[in-house]
């Protein structure tokens, strides 16, 4: 394959962004949750690889929602467990 496929271009893939440490702190405080309580995403997930997320980063996902129009979701990058 000559050009690497950019999965973020696909209609089913919402926008992913790596969040800064400050943003993560504000997020955790806003929902008064701990780091581990966030939903997870694996480090080798196609979208995470595309934006260069590392284990321990928090990814902001900007979804097109049918109820709210635009909705933000957050996922913590973890290592894929070995089978």
């Amino acid at each position, binding site marked *: 394959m000559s050009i690497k496929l950019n999965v973020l271009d696909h*209609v089913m*893939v919402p926008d992913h962004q790596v969040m800064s440490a400050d943003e993560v702190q504000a997020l955790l405080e806003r929902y008064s949750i701990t780091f581990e309580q966030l*939903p*997870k995403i694996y480090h080798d997930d*196609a*979208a995470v690889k595309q934006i260069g997320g590392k284990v321990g980063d928090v990814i902001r996902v900007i*979804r097109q929602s*049918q109820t709210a129009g*635009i909705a933000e979701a957050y996922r913590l990058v973890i290592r894929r467990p070995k089978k």
Partner: protein
Amino acid sequence: MLTDAMRDRIESSDFPPLTRQQLLDSLGDKEFSEEQFEEILEAVQNEFEETRIEPLEAVGVIAAQSIGEPGTQMTMRTFHYAGVAEINVTLGLPRLIEIMDARKEPSTPTMTIYLSSEFNEDRDRARMVSWQIEAAPLHEFGDITTDMENMQVLVAVNQAVLAKRKISMEMIVETAQKKIRDRRHYRDFEVEADPENHVIIFTPKDQEKYQNLFQLAEHVRNVIVQGIDDIERVVVRKESGEYILYTEGSNLKDVFEVPGVDTVRTRTNNISEIAQVLGIEAARNAIMAEALATLGEQGIKVDVRHIMLVADMMCMDGEVKQIGRHGIAGEKESVLSRAAFEVTVNHLLDAAVANEIDELNGVTENVIVGQPIQLGTGDVKLVAKSRT
């Protein structure tokens, strides 16, 4: 009229983006006073609060009922020709179960392949892409005869088919050889091409047994020399002004690599493939889209929020988990809660062996032991302040 100040107030309000946009759109050209605007905002605010889920509401149970009840009205066994292009697609209850069970492969995998702009306006150009996708066994390229006297399998290649499918004799020889060896695990043969007479000759190494010859003939007949192995059939159809390919069989990764395929819109109904190629968020979208389409096709309307909850739960941990004993229900923390679901004795036994402790934090386990559950009013506790 909508003044800039009013516009700013709507834009900076706490409403979700969709509500804000709808509010702006519906107020856009209407006449109203300042007081009326305040009234409208208040009414929208009240309506918005009404639609919100209250704290400690059992959303999971509501979602389960809201999907389950209409599910009873669905056709139990439907193997339907889904209108589009006589391709067989599992619908109805079996499909819904398939989605929730997070099967590795659906019983009827199918893809909808969109083409890039150079290929989607003309049927012949679309066909050219489809040749690269549809799995074509060698027998479609010419006559195959078994020569028992000389212990050979002869393929008389049809030149017209080669020209139509834009593939050369050398390419056929090369891929056929490679695929028989790698994919079909049959190695004891030699290949020889005779370009002048348009014949390919396959000879088994073991010249003693006829069994080898017939085995080789079978491999030669069925080896896929063009297209993608998993995709058995491709149908070209015109839809809203462009040509689209529908397939039986699915392989998202390989199809994305075919030139002429639109990698932005092309999709498959195989959710685990989407999770692998496009990531977990795309899989979440796919679960929602597939579930809604399956329900919608049967004329059943289920609020998206129930489906969203199910999809969110399934994709929570970074991979697609099934609803059930091997997924969400099987990974609950509480022993009693797991035991209440399925295979009760096994769970209790394993928990006893592992010396597990149940913290009684969830709903099911508290119902079992007869304590108030932490839902609705059950979680409200009275705190008495001492007088002193």
